């Protein structure tokens, strides 16, 4: 459930020699794997190669360049990285900058921080309180994205929104969230939306810690912070790294804020994913330029994914 992704377990990378013996001959295995191989080739490998080729053309959806795209060399990349204008709102550099702020704020601080806090608070606890909190956090994660976008528009509304009603009551005024603080709005929104993943990952990881470690620390009188620093953190370092890399990767590609702000106002929440969408699927449908953006995004994804694979491989060796 939840968003379409799950964390890859290190055990998936085990080599043949470490695994159990085969029951069937390889011939049978190939039959079982053929549909998957077809999907991988058509929907993962082919698009990856194709997007590189497209990024050197002026392909559009409509007009004369639709049927006969021309080779334009690096022109699309030059337009993206044009130093005179790329940091303006609505351009590539600005979109990258907004995305970095969004990833740091909503994923690394919001989701991972909140997720760790909740998992740690309910460590070795059972009961209604834990069930209620976990259920609500998971609900925020699994409800369809258009629905949560609608409820957040209502939640953040300047005049009627619940958030401003609460803030006004405790004397903090009524900020116009979606207009004056759009980036803060989508950071808050995405922290809310995605905390479940980190919370579940960390609470699962905490359960792997032998209770005797914690009991020993309690006997010698360690306080909560000391327990966290000297027991949990060192033992969970690998899980924390896994979580941070994966949520960075996913948040970098997330499109849902578009449903909340449409990238606006005045392109102030235009993430790279939204910039790609606007370039390739709205207005003039510039697939060539859109592909160049997609290539840069995929190279960033590739770097993060390779770091992730290297980190789990190293963990298995040590």
């Amino acid at each position: 459930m939840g968003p379409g992704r799950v964390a890859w377990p290190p055990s998936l990378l085990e080599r043949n020699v470490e695994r159990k013996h085969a029951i069937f001959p390889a011939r049978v295995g190939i039959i079982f794997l053929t549909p998957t191989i077809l999907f991988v080739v058509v929907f993962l490998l082919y698009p990856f190669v194709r997007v590189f080729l497209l990024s050197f053309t002026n392909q559009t959806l409509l007009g004369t360049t639709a049927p006969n795209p021309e080779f334009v060399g690096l022109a699309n990349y030059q337009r993206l990285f044009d130093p005179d204008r790329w940091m303006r709102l609505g351009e590539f550099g600005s979109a990258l900058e907004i995305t970095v702020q969004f990833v740091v704020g909503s994923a690394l601080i919001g989701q991972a921080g909140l997720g760790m806090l909740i998992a740690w608070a309910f460590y070795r606890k059972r009961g209604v309180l834990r069930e209620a909190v976990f259920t609500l956090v998971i609900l925020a994660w699994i409800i369809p994205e258009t629905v949560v976008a609608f409820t957040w528009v209502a939640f953040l509304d300047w005049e009627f929104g619940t958030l401003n009603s609460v803030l006004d009551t405790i004397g903090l005024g009524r900020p116009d969230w979606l207009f004056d603080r759009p980036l803060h709005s989508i950071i808050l929104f995405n922290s809310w939306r995605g905390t479940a993943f980190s919370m579940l990952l960390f609470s699962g990881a905490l359960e792997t810690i032998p209770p005797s470690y914690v009991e020993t620390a309690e006997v010698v009188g360690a306080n909560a912070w000391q327990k966290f620093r000297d027991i949990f953190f060192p033992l969970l370092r690998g899980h924390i790294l896994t979580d941070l890399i994966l949520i960075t990767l996913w948040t970098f590609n997330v499109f849902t804020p578009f449903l909340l702000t449409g990238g606006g106002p005045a392109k102030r929440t235009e993430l790279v994913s939204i910039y790609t969408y606007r370039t390739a699927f709205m207005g003039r449908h510039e697939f060539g330029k859109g592909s160049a953006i997609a290539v840069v995004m995929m190279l960033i994804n590739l770097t993060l994914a390779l770091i992730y694979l290297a980190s789990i491989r190293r963990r298995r060796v040590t």
Partner: protein
Amino acid sequence: MNTFLARSWLARVLLFVFAVVIAAFFVTPLLWLITAPFNTQANLAVTIPSNPSLANFEAVYNNKFAMRALFQNNLIIGGGVMVLVAGVATMASYGLSRTHVPGRDVLVYVLILFSSVVSGTAAMVPIFLLVFRLGLIDTYAGVILVMTGGLLPSAIFIMRDFIDSIPRSYEEAALVCGASSLRVFRDVALPMVRPGVVVVAIWAFVNAWGAFLIPSVLLRSPDRMPASIASYSFYTEAGTPNLTLLSAYAFLYTIPVLVLYLIVNWRFGFRFFGGIKS
């Protein structure tokens, strides 16, 4: 001893306060979805309707376009993705677990790497042109195939958890008795991994049910749009939403997801597939 008691009492109070704050943060944005659908004069405020009514649902029910989106298009797309993902992923993880195919490690590596790299809006640019070339723009099949491709790698991994947990001795016994490999898979292994197939199927269905980006890029005709896009039919041309109908529709659209979550939670426990076992 008294200080110990005081500390544990304090810890309980602190935990309670923390839980209330967190629960409030996660539930308040959703309150509107619970109150507005039953309020015939709903605005963006959360107000408990003085006169709860089902009139909004009646009006939504009369919107043929939105109803077809929810009860026809969403079911076709969700059902197609569910069947394909569950079937293909079960076969693949069974094959990976029970045979030594040459190049298996490469396949797994490619699955992990490229499913992270080729995703989101970036992947939609080449995929749109691919689907266009296949003549599948504005078809259910195009949407179903693209969604299946995106969900498959994760589904294989979820499935593997279940397949690795069933004993091999039954399959080996059946083989010794002369059963064919297809028969061993269908009659011996499949009944044992049925919970896994159900979980993967529900997971795939829920993901397809809520998707916005893929259908918005690949579909054209209003007749085939799923509910995520049809929700916007409750906006006027000037861009102002009809909040009463929109909230009622969003409510109906969310219910299946909640029901499926409850079923999974109750039948299997909401097990998290997060690479914790290693």
